[in-house]
């Protein structure tokens, strides 16, 4: 069984980097193909695994006005109710519009989960804020458990290492993560 994990967002734009952290934390997990989607989200429709993976998980930063780090999880029939299409700009179509386009093309995966991590700051060259980093690490671990990784804690460690060493965040900044369900 293959799970396609799509981490949407730019790694170098503050909280927008949450999806990339999740994807990178899971890239060595058996049964997972993890990709970072830092450009036009509609490119996911040209990924062969979009149509063939048994499961697709898309992780992106969202803004609904809730506390940073709050995790939203949407799946099943109601998924698109939470993600209205925006029509897109000249640069890209956006995640929600891409998913609606997939429906129109009859190519929405049967098993699709969209995880949104509430973010607030998207400044270029900055790491995600602490609650967002921790939410990303915890989501990576939770997904590893769901996928059946025998050592999901390792995924947490990978996520923390990415945050600490590569994003450049001090370990002392870590704190609790709030997990919410929408």
């Amino acid at each position, binding site marked *: 069984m293959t799970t396609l994990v799509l981490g949407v967002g730019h790694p170098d734009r503050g909280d927008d980097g949450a999806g990339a952290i999740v994807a990178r934390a899971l890239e060595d997990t058996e049964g997972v193909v993890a990709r970072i989607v830092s*450009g036009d989200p509609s490119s996911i429709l040209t990924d062969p695994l979009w149509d063939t993976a048994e499961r697709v998980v898309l992780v992106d930063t969202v803004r609904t006005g809730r506390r940073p780090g709050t995790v939203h999880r949407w799946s099943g029939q109601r998924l698109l109710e939470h993600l209205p299409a925006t029509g897109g700009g000249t640069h890209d179509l956006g995640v929600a519009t891409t998913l609606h386009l997939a429906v129109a093309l009859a190519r929405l995966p049967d098993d699709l989960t969209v995880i949104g991590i509430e973010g607030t700051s998207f400044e270029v060259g900055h790491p995600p804020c602490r609650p967002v980093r921790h939410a990303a690490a915890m989501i990576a671990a939770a997904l590893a458990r769901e996928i059946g990784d025998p050592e999901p804690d390792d995924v947490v460690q990978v996520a923390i290492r990415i945050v600490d060493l590569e994003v450049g965040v001090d370990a002392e900044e870590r704190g609790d993560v709030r997990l919410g369900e929408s």
Partner: protein
Amino acid sequence: MSHSHDRTISVEALARVEGEGAMHVEVADGRVEQVQLRIYEPPRFFEAMLRGRTYLEPPDITARICGICPVAYQLSAINAIESLCGIGTPDGMPMPDGIRQLRRLLYCGEWIESHVLHIFLLHAPDFLGYQGAIEMAADHRDLVEMALRLRKAGNQLLEVIGGRAIHPINVRVGGFHRAPTRTELQEMVPELLWGREAAIAAARLVAGVEFPDLDQSPTFASLRPEQDSLPPGATGYPIEDGRLVTNSGLDVPIAAWPEHFHEEHVEHSTALHGRMTDGGTYLVGPAARFNLNADRLPAEIADLAAEVGCAEAVTNPFRSIVVRAIETVYAFDEALRLIDAYDRPETPAVEVRPVAGTGHGATEAPRGILYHRYTLDEEGLITDAVIVPPPSQNQPAIEEDLLEFVQAHLHLDDDALQWQCEQAIRNYDPCISCSTHFLDLTVRRR
């Protein structure tokens, strides 16, 4: 009120364009008095950010201005700096053919990605009667699937040469960090061959839609490569360099830009407005490029252009979608030619030493001429930077076009007029993020 002689129409947010802005129309006694594109997206201060940086940094910094035309920013910056530092100039160090080929090939990828997105996913819904790409996809699934595959082909070029599709990281002053092998480029040929045929079919398809009447004869400006500078087999349709030409007879080197063009502040927009130094408006972009360089298309593509109704200059902005399709065919065709001719350079980059002074560079971004100017001190630090993106140059001309267009369509109610205005604006594929730098519409009818 929709049909009174005095009327104000406001479009509060335009769909399928990039950035944030509004359109305001004032109508009094049945006459359109004013049309304003009100750009309120905050200025981005990239020019100020560049001051104090080294001459090697603009390609990576300015690429961040735009997610869909980063190559344009990179290569315009590089052209400006290299021309100042004596690289590729008539009396300077020659640029190896392989590096020139890779730069143009990279740019083909950007044209393909940008043009295909605009033609099929942003503009085609207007002509086929849909609110957007999603509604269109339900009835035209094959068309949308084709568009996605065409874009992927463009992205592949960007990834193989540039290192990644968005904000390529393999581009540097002097060349590239790594030159791809001939084999790496050859692996893309089958998909590019498919893309060329698919793009030809697409050009025929978009040429068959019904275009609203609008005939404009603005000053068109574009680049035009010097005939003498063309490598064997190249026809010289402008992409990554050229002289500055207009249909009013201007034909000067890029360094003469400040003598003929300038930018000015207007109260209703955070984006600067580009004008000719005589105060006149002008248009850059696919129609300008095509009208000034149709003779530079390969014969087969020139024949296609004639077949799809572009045998002569294109003066109806609504037909710009056809020109973009023709240019998409050209980008695939040119990519194939470049790969066939590719001569991998012995070193991926030449050394560029800083020279104090001012350098000018321009390339043809998908939306038109992108001009950069940098002044360096003796140590190669930037003391001044000027970036003039295509949307800024086009805004005054778009306002003029819209004034005439709205006047001719005042019989429409406000909703219908707004829809038509949005469609008209999309003809120019404006990118407000670049120009600051789109659309809320207000029409005030008094």
